[in-house]
């Protein structure tokens, strides 16, 4: 069985990420974000959301483990900030209902959701410049970079929350990520 661990950045929905993985039949555990990278034995990682990028522990180091990583909300921002992209306060907070336009239908993570998908979001900050090697996968009227991908390194980020019940195709995102991890 594929094993995908969830790194806890103290987000409200962290445990729902674990539940979503459990519900699609993936072996999963919750890890503290200060876990030494050499102790991680998963086939893939989810970096959870959370209130503060300063409190994201050793998340940046996990990007060098050469396993697929899915950054959610703050998890995506950590990815961008540590790989040469940029994170700033958005002009317009993204809360609850957002319609995301999928711009790359071949994207391994969100391509299958094209042309658009309704998601549930909860963020003030956002990624304002893509990190090197990444391409844009989704955008919305309230946030220019809703999803980003680097399929060569299997690094993916979504600004919304695929793990909450109100996100329309959330389970599909986790299914697609599992495929990346197999």
């Amino acid at each position, binding site marked *: 069985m594929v094993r995908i661990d969830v790194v806890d950045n*103290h*987000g*409200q929905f962290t*445990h*729902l990420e674990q539940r979503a993985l459990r519900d699609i039949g993936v072996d999963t555990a919750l890890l503290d974000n200060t876990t030494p990278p050499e102790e991680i034995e998963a086939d893939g990682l989810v970096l959870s959301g959370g209130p503060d990028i300063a409190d994201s522990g050793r998340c940046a180091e996990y990007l060098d483990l050469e396993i697929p990583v899915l950054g959610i909300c703050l998890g995506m921002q950590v990815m961008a900030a540590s790989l040469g992209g940029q994170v700033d306060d958005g002009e317009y907070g993204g*809360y*609850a209902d957002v319609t995301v336009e999928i711009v790359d239908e071949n994207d391994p993570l969100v391509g299958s959701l094209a042309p658009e998908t309704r998601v549930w979001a909860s963020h003030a900050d956002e990624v304002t410049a893509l990190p090197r090697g990444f391409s844009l996968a989704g955008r919305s009227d309230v946030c220019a970079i809703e999803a980003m991908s680097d399929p060569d390194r299997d690094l993916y980020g979504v600004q919304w*929350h695929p793990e909450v*019940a109100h996100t329309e195709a959330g389970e599909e995102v986790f299914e697609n990520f599992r495929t990346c991890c197999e």
Partner: protein
Amino acid sequence: MVDAEQFIEDAVEELREEIGDANAVIALSGGVDSSVAAALAYEAIGDQLIPVYVDTGLMRKGETDQIRETFAYMESLRIVEAQDRFLDALSGVTDPEEKRHAIGEQFIREFEREARESDADYLVQGTIYPDRIESEGNIKSHHNVGGLPERVDFEGIVEPVRDLYKDEVRDVARTLGLEAIVAERMPFPGPGLAVRIVGEITSEKLTVAREATAVVEDELESYEPWQAFAAVLGKATGVKGDNRVHGYVVAVRSVESRDGMTARAQELDWETLQRIQSRITGTLPNVSRVLYDVTHKPPATIEYE
């Protein structure tokens, strides 16, 4: 989703093993979580379980009678009338966190006395998974997590539904035959109507919150909301029968949700909203306005404080 039958079997076994021949107490709130925890514990240890229901005066309309009826099969059930003591404890308190704290403290005081009298070594709690997460994350404090164990020297605390989500608890409740609890009761917060009143709690505002919530629950039944209620926000001017009324502003909230972690404000038709408005202002002379809350969670929470 958890397999309910297997879960019940394991939970009963765990409770039996952990509590053995000792006595245990559980605080019944009337909600599905503590009801399921109590039913599991009763199945495991029978009358060694002393269920205690504290009527805080912050309960919904008819709630105490319903509890008495649902749990009549547990002979050891105790009902504590503590309405006045809670109002005293809340007098002058306006800060939401302080309010929760005052309720938690008073609750512990009531429960501590009952626990001592019942000679219980164990405490059973209906804590579910999101309660733990929200408390750990400091979003809101849940009064059924922590507090009590420091005051009463229990040998152990058992939380049989600690890893379940609300929808899973409901599933277990159904399997346990607690149909009434599932069908007729929406989730209700531990601190009760107190978190549906912005600012100080008075018996007058409690009456408004209680009666208005009963109207909302009744009118919105067909929408099958996950949670629907009325909250008391403050005062505003109105006019009733040529007289100026400086009355309460009542907010109506109705949301759909799977697990309470996110919620969508329900789309209600104008006629329904108008009927709610008319029934609330028509039967409660001190209400001048009724509003409908259209905010999802996030950015709002489901309850007000």
